[in-house]
């Protein structure tokens, strides 16, 4: 049976719909309660974790690096729990990192720009007239962040299997539609999709090991084979390659580690 990753333009609206869908289907609900567990396990604050899901880190490299580490901690915890099917996941950005997993149905709940502006004005305690401008800025920054961090643009319609517009649908109808779609056999878990999910978890675990030493690391996994991409100055590329291999090999379930090093000189010349 499927996993359902719900995202929404307005957090509270999506939360209700995701909760009700889980209840109606008899599925487990996985939400931001998870952040408390992650915070305790990794000695970070819940606020830091929440910020990493909500706001762009800005331009300071140290903050970007920290944000990547925090986002990755959430991904690991979330993907560990999603190895069990029959789960509705909400508020953890799962729709961005479940791409390619065929038994993960990704749903987006759409609100109008006016509804979103009103919600933002209420939350920020600002005049309604100023909200659209801030909303636009935040959207741009969020799209950039999601693309850089997860490799997916959250504004891209093809990211979602189902987009539900609350200006034309009652929330109860949206719940019905999600539950009906979840019954489709195309979202059934199978050996291949479970392997894809396991590969995503392994990639995040490897990234967790490598991010403190290699902040620009990119990791992908296919059937237990890990491909790592880092940049380095030519003189210590080999040493770094070895370190990556050693750290990545500590993660369970890995068959082989391939490390690609891009010369930092080349990058700076191109840039």
């Amino acid at each position, binding site marked *: 049976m499927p996993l359902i990753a719900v995202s929404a333009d307005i957090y509270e609206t999506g939360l209700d719909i995701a909760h009700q869908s889980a209840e109606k289907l008899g599925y487990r609900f996985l939400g931001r309660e998870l952040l408390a567990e992650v915070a305790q396990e990794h000695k970070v604050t819940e606020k830091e974790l929440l910020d990493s899901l909500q706001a762009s880190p800005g331009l300071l490299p140290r903050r970007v690096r920290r944000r990547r580490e925090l986002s990755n901690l959430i991904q690991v915890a979330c993907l560990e729990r999603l190895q069990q099917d029959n789960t509705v996941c909400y508020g953890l950005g799962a729709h961005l990192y479940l791409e390619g997993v065929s038994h993960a149905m990704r749903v987006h709940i759409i609100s109008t720009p006016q509804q979103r502006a009103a919600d933002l004005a209420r939350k920020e305690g600002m005049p309604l007239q100023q909200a659209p401008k801030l909303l636009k800025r935040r959207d741009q920054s969020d799209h950039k962040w999601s693309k850089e961090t997860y490799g997916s643009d959250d504004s891209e319609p093809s990211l979602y299997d189902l987009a539900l517009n609350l200006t034309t649908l009652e929330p109860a109808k949206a719940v019905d539609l999600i539950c009906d779609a979840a019954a489709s056999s*195309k979202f059934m878990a*199978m*050996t*291949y999709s479970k392997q894809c999910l396991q590969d995503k978890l392994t990639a995040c675990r490897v990234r967790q090991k490598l991010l403190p030493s290699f902040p620009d690391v990119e990791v992908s996994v296919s059937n237990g084979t890990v491909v790592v991409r880092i940049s380095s100055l030519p003189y210590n590329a080999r040493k770094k390659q070895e370190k990556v291999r050693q750290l990545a090999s500590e993660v369970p379930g890995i068959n082989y580690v391939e490390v690609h090093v891009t010369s930092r000189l080349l990058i700076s010349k191109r840039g």
Partner: protein
Amino acid sequence: MSEPLSVLLLDDEPIVGKRLRPVLNKLGCEVEVFDDPKLAMQRLQEKEFNIVVTDIRMDDIDGMQVLEYVRQQWPDTRVIMITGYAMMSLAREAMEKGAFDFLAKPFTPDDLRKVISMAARYYGFDIKSPDPD
């Protein structure tokens, strides 16, 4: 169950059948291997197999057509799709058309054993899976 589990294995690369036949035989299955989809389809017209394992991308007749035919002709037969071109859209299409499971190549003999043992349970066979769920 007195009759052994019957399996039709179809892959246009003969090496796949050659490698997988012993794996299935060891599980106690009666296996018929085909590398020509037309001959496999002819055989499927004559006999109801418990399990069909088919490659997807083949010339003339592809695995999706085999799946559709088997689901229509023998609804109780479990169809397992195998492919070297696995992707989300293909996996979803196969499941929607009634596939029992979908495996990406390369896979290990243990992966196949696990899937066969799950499919066999439907017929009351208890094949020991390498990693029981």
